[in-house]
């Protein structure tokens, strides 16, 4: 796997004068095409991690390395970082600024200084991928929460990053919206995009991710496969997390942990016919 983004002892402190450091020296490496769940309670440092990875914040110490090139303080380098790593904000209302969905999605590509036909192509592609074609000339203020979220993702998709960071994309979504979001993530994954999703939803993390980062109090506590992370109950309780429901069920039934409810059903049938 090709390396996309590497953090080398990166730390960051908000200048509010508090003693608590927002992010302690952090070293982590993200690769192409990965599906990463970033877990942690509120204030664990997930958002700070994302803002640093996207270049909105610059590290207090340490280096961010993009595809082998260290990113310094220069504007051009930070632009390169923002171009390759896209960030979908937690609150779509913070992100959306244009009068119509179409204009909104064109904001990123226009900032990249692309020719008009290319911007057009990317806007069409993003509209299509997220099923927003119907809404193209609507104002963002007249969209529902789930639709806004999809526009926010389309915004970033149109910039065609190699890695997309999503900050709690399922917050404020109804079950149908969540379902659609997961399908969207699947679409993005099939496009070959690396995805990192900050979430509180351990069930989702178990279902979807192939790598889990656990943050707690500004530190990266664990970086491992989901199987290893969710087996560590001491870690979970220390970080204010819990086991996915399928793990609890499997523990109660004393069976191996299934990946999906369907798998659980298979197992049960198998046991009865034995």
């Amino acid at each position, binding site marked *: 796997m090709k390396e996309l983004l590497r953090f080398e002892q990166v730390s960051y402190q908000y200048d509010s004068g508090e003693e608590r450091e927002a992010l302690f020296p952090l070293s982590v490496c993200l690769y192409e095409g990965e599906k990463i769940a970033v877990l942690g309670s509120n204030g664990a440092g997930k958002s700070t991690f994302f*803002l640093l990875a*996207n*270049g*909105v914040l610059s590290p207090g110490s340490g280096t961010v390395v993009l595809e082998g090139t260290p990113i310094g303080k220069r504007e051009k380098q930070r*632009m390169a970082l*923002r*171009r390759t790593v*896209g*960030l979908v*904000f937690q*609150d779509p*209302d*913070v*992100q*959306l*600024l*244009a*009068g*119509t969905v*179409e*204009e*909104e999605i*064109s*904001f*990123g*590509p*226009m*900032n*990249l200084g692309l020719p*008009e036909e290319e*911007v*057009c192509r990317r*806007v069409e592609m993003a509209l299509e991928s997220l099923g927003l074609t119907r809404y193209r*000339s*609507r*104002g*963002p*203020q*007249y969209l529902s929460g789930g639709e806004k979220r999809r526009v926010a993702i389309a*915004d*970033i998709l149109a*910039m065609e990053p190699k890695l997309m960071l999503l900050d709690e994309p399922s917050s404020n979504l109804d079950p149908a919206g969540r379902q659609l979001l997961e399908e969207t993530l699947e679409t993005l994954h099939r496009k070959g995009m690396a995805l990192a999703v900050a979430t509180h939803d351990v069930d989702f993390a178990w279902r979807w991710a192939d790598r889990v980062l656990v943050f707690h109090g500004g530190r990266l506590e664990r970086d491992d496969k989901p199987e290893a992370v969710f087996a560590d109950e001491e870690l979970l309780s220390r970080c204010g997390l819990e086991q996915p429901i399928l793990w609890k069920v499997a523990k109660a039934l004393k069976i191996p942990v299934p990946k999906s409810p369907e798998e659980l059903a298979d197992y049960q049938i198998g046991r009865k016919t034995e």
Partner: protein
Amino acid sequence: MIAGILAGLVFFSLFAGQLPLVWLAAVCLGVVLFFLLAGGHHHDGVLTMDVYARRSRLCRENAAFKTGVSLVLLVLCICCQSPVPPLCLFVFLSAVTVAAGGIRLRTYLSLLTLPGVFLLLSGLTLLWDYTSKLPEKAVLYLPFFGGWLAVLPAAQSLAMLVLSRALGAVSCLYFLSLSTPLPELLAVLRRVHVPAIMVELAVLIYRYIFILLATFRDMKDSAASRLGYRGLKRSLRTTGLVYGGLLANSFRRAGACFDAMESRCYTGQIAFLTEKKRVTAKVVGLLVLPVLGMLAGVWFGF
């Protein structure tokens, strides 16, 4: 209700001495009824206009063309020396907005009451004059603190001209704003090289006014649910707190929004891709007639 009475009064003063009494009464009654029927249900004003503009069938037409024609019509309307052309323009453009645009007549009329009240108030001040001696030609007069409040025929024709011009102008602006969403207007402004800073400010204001309103509504509701508006003193205090909170919220949000823009490679220039809309024969056909009519009106001084 007040607007209705005001309208009746203005129209009575406007036509007094010019129409037979029966006709005068009929006109006044009609106007009063119009205001009573058209008013009555409330809007969020500007924000609903935006919704209607997006729904309008004329929304699909080229924004620059609509803006240009509206401005030309506006100027011609103001140049008119007689009340007839502006009134014709008013009727014609209202018909275009309602019939071709697909705005409901009732909605259109109720939106008209807003500028209507201002027009009527100014009409009243134009019509009634205060003099110490009763003028001979006065059509209507009232004794008032030792002098006279009177309506003169000259004032009547002046008020007629001013009101009709204003009405024509309002119909031009309503035609534009009920067929063109604001973002498109801003794109037009950008193309005619209005300074970028102004257009960008307008873009941001347009977007954030909705967010600000939504936040305000939420904060107010949550204060009301905790009985924050019980009694005058407490209401005042709560209102202050809500506004204060709104300010703090806005600051926080401004920071977050700027981060979000930066994260999408914002470098100090807001640029969007705007949808190209061609000038169609339909809209040209609709608007050529009023332009020619108004030109003729100004030229021949009807």
